[in-house]
């Protein structure tokens, strides 16, 4: 089984292409990594939901373009 850190970086899409290919091949044959990968995916979903982008009301200047409404200092 690969380390939690390596698996996390794999699941997060943060491995180099070569390392990603190696990991992909390993995970395909490792039930422990598959199980851990599922937990990491669930955790990723939780973090993603918690840190989702907000959609605030747009201030008036946004409809006119930034360069036409200088911010008050």
């Amino acid at each position, binding site marked *: 089984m690969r380390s939690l*850190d390596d698996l*996390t*970086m794999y699941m*997060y*899409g*943060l491995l180099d292409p070569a390392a990603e290919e190696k990991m992909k091949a390993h995970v395909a044959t490792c039930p422990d990594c598959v199980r851990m990968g599922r937990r990491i995916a669930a*955790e990723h979903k*939780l*973090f*993603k*939901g*918690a*840190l*989702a*982008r*907000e*959609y*605030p009301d*747009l*201030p008036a*200047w*946004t*409809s*006119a*373009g*930034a*360069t036409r*409404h*200088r*911010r008050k200092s």
Partner: protein
Amino acid sequence: MRRVNLLGLETDEDLAQRAREGGREAERLLILRLYPGVYTLADRLLHNPENARDAAQEAFLRAFSRLHQYDGAHRFSAWIFRILVNLIRDEFRRSNRVVTAELKPDDWPSNEPIPLEAAIREENYARVRGHVDRLPEQMKTALLLHFQENLNGREIAYALGITYDAARLKISRAVAKLRQWMGEDE
């Protein structure tokens, strides 16, 4: 040649090109697309909605006044986040325009019970956000750029002005800290 994305919309990068050529409509569209993410990141780093609005506007002002410097090596959004991160680091923090975290009003209407599943989910989300606020600033920013903005490792590195390996390490350590703190909550 004009490029479009999967939704048939002009890409941010093409809009940036048109804005550089003086296209006001392109500039406006870029603001409409990117403002929510820029504002959200600023608010999560500054913990002050008014300062976040100022920082977001200033980031766009700077971006559009320096469009000639955008070389297209990264997505336009990564470039504007880089501007925002530098702006917050150099100006908003230096001038002590950061206030302590403030409690935000609950979005749920007070006269209706919160569905249990949603309540548990919201509680977990709030726990995550609370722990994210405990992270060192660069770790927190890297994590937000990944989860909130879907930036890839190289884009996060570019936005933070650090190496790709350093960006990956920050995310890895940030996630490890979150796991530790979440585990301590149990």
